[in-house]
C-alpha cells in the first residue's frame, strides 16, 4: 500500500517539478536541455502510471479469470489521501487522489501521449528563443491534467480543470507578438470561463444537497436525490463539459486555438484537455444515468455539433483548422455516445482518438515544418515522395479516423454507431453522415497534401522541403503503431474479443454496467457492411475530386452561396459578435460616457479639489512663528481646563 501511495504521489509530482525547474532555469538551460528535462519528467510519470496500472488488482483479476469475470474483484478503487486541504465546519475536502480503472486509463493516455509529444516538441521547437518557457508550460499542463483525472473529489478535478484552462491560454498565446494569436488565446479563456461558471454552480448545488464532494460518496448517495435536482446538477456540470470540450454553443474557441504551436494543438486541443468534459461525465456517470433529460440534451448537443463542424471541416484550407474542426466533430460523437449511455464506447473513442488525432496533428506539424511554416493545403501537394515517414504515418492516421476495418478508429466509431442504431435508426443515419463527412475531409486533406503535384510558390519541393529529424518522426511512428492496433484494446465480441477495456472501466464508472447491447449478430454485420461500403465510396469520391489536383481551389468568396456559408463556418462567429460582443461594447461605451464621465469623474475630481482647498486654508496656521504656536497651546489648555471645570 505504501508503495502505491508513493507512486501515486510521484505521478503528478514529476511534471510539477519539471515545470518549476525549467521555469526557474529558463535562461540557463541551453539548447535542448530544457526539452530533455521536461520529456524525462513526463516519461518518469508515465513509468509510474504504468507500474500502478500493472499492480492494479482489477488487471490481475481480469487476467486470472480469463477476462470473463462478470464482477471483477472488489477494492478496485484506491483513495490516496496526501493531506487535509479544506476542513471547515461541515465541509471536508482532502487533497486526495482516486486510483481506479478510469483514472488509470486517463493517466496512461495523458502521460503516454504526453511523453511522445514532448519528445516531438524538442525537434519542433528547437530554434524558438523561448523554448524553455514552452516546456515549462507544457509540463505544467501535464501536471494540471493529471490533477484533473486523478482527483478524488470534484474540487481536485476543478483545480486541474482551471489549471489546464490556464495552460491552454498561455500556450495558445505562446507566440504573443502576433495580436491575432492573443485574441485567440483570450477567446479560448473567456469561452472556457463561461463553461466553468456552470461547473462551479453544479458543484455548489451538489454540495448543498449532499454535503460532500468526494466522488465515492457522491456516487453512493446519488440515488437519494430527486430527479429534478439531479437533472439540474447534471445540466450544470454538462455546461462545464461544453466549455472544455468545445461543443455547441461554445465550440468556436477550439479552431482559433490552432494559433498555438502544433505540439500544443496535438496535446491539449486534440488528445487530452478537450476530452476532460467526457471524462467528467463518465466520472459522474452514476449521476448522469439518473437524469434522462440531461442525457437527451447531451445526445443532441453532441449530434448537432458534430454534424455542423464536420461540414465546416470540408471547406477549410488550413491544415490545422481541418484537424481542429475534425476534433470538435469527433468530440461531438463521443458526447452522442455519452448521451446514449454508452460510456465505455465514449471512453474507448477518447483513447483511440487520442492516438490518431495526436498522430495527425504531429504529422501536420511535420508537414508545416518541412514547408517552412506553410499551412494552406491548397499550396501543398506531392509531398508523398519527399516526406516519406510523415506520409505513411499520416496515411495510417487518416485510415484510422476514417474507420477502415482493422484500424483503431473503426472499432471505437463502430461501437458508437451501433449504440446509435440501437437507440433509433435515424440517429444511426446522422452519426453515419458525420463519419462520411469525416472520411471525406480527411482524405481531401491527405490527397491535397501528399498527392498530385506541388502547387506552392516556386518549385521548392525538390530542393527546400525535407523530412523532419528523427526526434520528430519516432513519436509519429509510435503513434502510428498505436493507431493501427489501438482497436484491440476493446475488441468487440463480433470479432472474437471480450471487450477488455469495457470490463476494466466497469469497475470504476457505475454507468457502464448498465449498458446492454441487444442487437443480433446479423444486424451488426449488416450495419457494419453498410458503413464500410459507404466509407469506401466516400474515399473514391474524394480521390476523384482531389487525387490528381494540380490547380488551386477557389477562394471561399468565389464559392456558390450555400458552400460559402459553410466555408464561413455557418457565420457563427459573426452571430456571436452581433449577439454578445457588440451589445457588450455598446454597454461599455455608455457606461463610460454616463457612469464614468458624469458620475465618477466629478466625484473624484471634486473630492480632490476639496482636499486641496482645505489644505490651503489649514496651511495658514503653520506660520513658523513659535510664539504663536505656544500661544495656541496655552489657549487650548485653558479651554480644556475651563471645559473640565464647568462640565462636572
Amino acid at each position, binding site marked *: 500500500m505504501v508503495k502505491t501511495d508513493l507512486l501515486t504521489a510521484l505521478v503528478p509530482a514529476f511534471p510539477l517539478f519539471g515545470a518549476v525547474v525549467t521555469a526557474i532555469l529558463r535562461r540557463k538551460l541551453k539548447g535542448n536541455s530544457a526539452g530533455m528535462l521536461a520529456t524525462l519528467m513526463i516519461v518518469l510519470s508515465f513509468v509510474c502510471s504504468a507500474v500502478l496500472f500493472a499492480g492494479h488488482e482489477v488487471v490481475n483479476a481480469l487476467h486470472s479469470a480469463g477476462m470473463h469475470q462478470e464482477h471483477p474483484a472488489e477494492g478496485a478503487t484506491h483513495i490516496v489521501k496526501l493531506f487535509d486541504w479544506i476542513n471547515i465546519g461541515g465541509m471536508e475536502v482532502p487533497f486526495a487522489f482516486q486510483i481506479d480503472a478510469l483514472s488509470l486509463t486517463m493517466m496512461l493516455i495523458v502521460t503516454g501521449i504526453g511523453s511522445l509529444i514532448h519528445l516531438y516538441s524538442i525537434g519542433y521547437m528547437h530554434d524558438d528563443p523561448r523554448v524553455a518557457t514552452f516546456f515549462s508550460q507544457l509540463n505544467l499542463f501535464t501536471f494540471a491534467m493529471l490533477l484533473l483525472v486523478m482527483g478524488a473529489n470534484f474540487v481536485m478535478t476543478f483545480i486541474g480543470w482551471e489549471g489546464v484552462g490556464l495552460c491552454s491560454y498561455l500556450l495558445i498565446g505562446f507566440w504573443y507578438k502576433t495580436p491575432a494569436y492573443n485574441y485567440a488565446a483570450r477567446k479560448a479563456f473567456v469561452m472556457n470561463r463561461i463553461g466553468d461558471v456552470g461547473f462551479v454552480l453544479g458543484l455548489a448545488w451538489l454540495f448543498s444537497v449532499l454535503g460532500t464532494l468526494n466522488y465515492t460518496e457522491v456516487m453512493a448517495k446519488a440515488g437519494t436525490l430527486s430527479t429534478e435536482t439531479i437533472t439540474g446538477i447534471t445540466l450544470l456540470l454538462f455546461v462545464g463539459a461544453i466549455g472544455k470540450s468545445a461543443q455547441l454553443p461554445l465550440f468556436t474557441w477550439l479552431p482559433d486555438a490552432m494559433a498555438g504551436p502544433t505540439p500544443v494543438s496535438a496535446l491539449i486541443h486534440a488528445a487530452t484537455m478537450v476530452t476532460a468534459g467526457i471524462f467528467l461525465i463518465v466520472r459522474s456517470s452514476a449521476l448522469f444515468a439518473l437524469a434522462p433529460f440531461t442525457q437527451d440534451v447531451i445526445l443532441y448537443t453532441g449530434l448537432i455539433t458534430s454534424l455542423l463542424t464536420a461540414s465546416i471541416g470540408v471547406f477549410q484550407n488550413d491544415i490545422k483548422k481541418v484537424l481542429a474542426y475534425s476534433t470538435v466533430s469527433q468530440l461531438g460523437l463521443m458526447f452522442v455516445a455519452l448521451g446514449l449511455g454508452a460510456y465505455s464506447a465514449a471512453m474507448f473513442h477518447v483513447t483511440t482518438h487520442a492516438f490518431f488525432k495526436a498522430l495527425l496533428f504531429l504529422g501536420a506539424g511535420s508537414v508545416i515544418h518541412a514547408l517552412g511554416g506553410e499551412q494552406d493545403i491548397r499550396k501543398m501537394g506531392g509531398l508523398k515522395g519527399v516526406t516519406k515517414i510523415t506520409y505513411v504515418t499520416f496515411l495510417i492516421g487518416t485510415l484510422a479516423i476514417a474507420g477502415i476495418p482493422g484500424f483503431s478508429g473503426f472499432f471505437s466509431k463502430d461501437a458508437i454507431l451501433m449504440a446509435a442504431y440501437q437507440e433509433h435508426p435515424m440517429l444511426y443515419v446522422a452519426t453515419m453522415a458525420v463519419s462520411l463527412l469525416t472520411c471525406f475531409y480527411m482524405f481531401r486533406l491527405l490527397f491535397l497534401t501528399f498527392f498530385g503535384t506541388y502547387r506552392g510558390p516556386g518549385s521548392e519541393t525538390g530542393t527546400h522541403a525535407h523530412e523532419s529529424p528523427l526526434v520528430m518522426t519516432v513519436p509519429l511512428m509510435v503513434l502510428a503503431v498505436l493507431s493501427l492496433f489501438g482497436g484491440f484494446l476493446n475488441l468487440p465480441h463480433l470479432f472474437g474479443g471480450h471487450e477488455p477495456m469495457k470490463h476494466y472501466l466497469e469497475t470504476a464508472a457505475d454507468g457502464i454496467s448498465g449498458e446492454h447491447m441487444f442487437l443480433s449478430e446479423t444486424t451488426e454485420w449488416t450495419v457494419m457492411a453498410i458503413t464500410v461500403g459507404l466509407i469506401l465510396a466516400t474515399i473514391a469520391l474524394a480521390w476523384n475530386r482531389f487525387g490528381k489536383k494540380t490547380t488551386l481551389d477557389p477562394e471561399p468568396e468565389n464559392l456558390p452561396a450555400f458552400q460559402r456559408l459553410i466555408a464561413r463556418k455557418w457565420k457563427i462567429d459573426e452571430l456571436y459578435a452581433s449577439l454578445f460582443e457588440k451589445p457588450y461594447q455598446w454597454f461599455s461605451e455608455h457606461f463610460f460616457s454616463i457612469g464614468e464621465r458624469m458620475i465618477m469623474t466629478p466625484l473624484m475630481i471634486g473630492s480632490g479639489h476639496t482636499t486641496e482647498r482645505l489644505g490651503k486654508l489649514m496651511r495658514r496656521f503653520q*506660520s*513658523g*512663528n513659535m510664539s504663536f504656536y505656544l500661544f495656541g497651546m496655552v489657549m487650548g489648555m485653558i479651554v480644556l481646563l475651563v471645559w473640565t471645570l464647568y462640565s462636572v
Partner: protein
Amino acid sequence: MNDVITAIRTVPLEHYVVLSFILFSIGMAGVLFRRNTIIILMCLELMFNSVNLLLTAFSAHHSDPSGQVFVFFIMLVAAAEVTVGLAILVMMKRNVDSVDINQLNRLKW
C-alpha cells in the same frame, strides 16, 4: 525628615497655592512673550517647579508620600528635556548665529 514636613505644615496651604499660581503665571508669560530661546527654556523650568512646589505642599499637608515621588519623576523628565532643548539651542546658535525664537520660522514649509 519629619522636621521638614512639620516646617512645611507651619505655612497654610492657601499660601502655597497662591505662590505656585504666581510662579506658573510668570513662567507662562515668559514663554509666551519672550523671544530669547534660553529665557523661554528657563521659564519652562519655572512652570515645572511651581507645579513641583504645589505637589510637595499637598503631599506634606495630606501625609501622602506619592506626591513627592511624583516630583522626582517630573524632575527626571525635565532634566532630559532640558538636555535636548539645550542641544537644539547650540545647533541653532551655530547655524543661524542667533537664539531668537522667531528665526526658527525658516523651518516652515
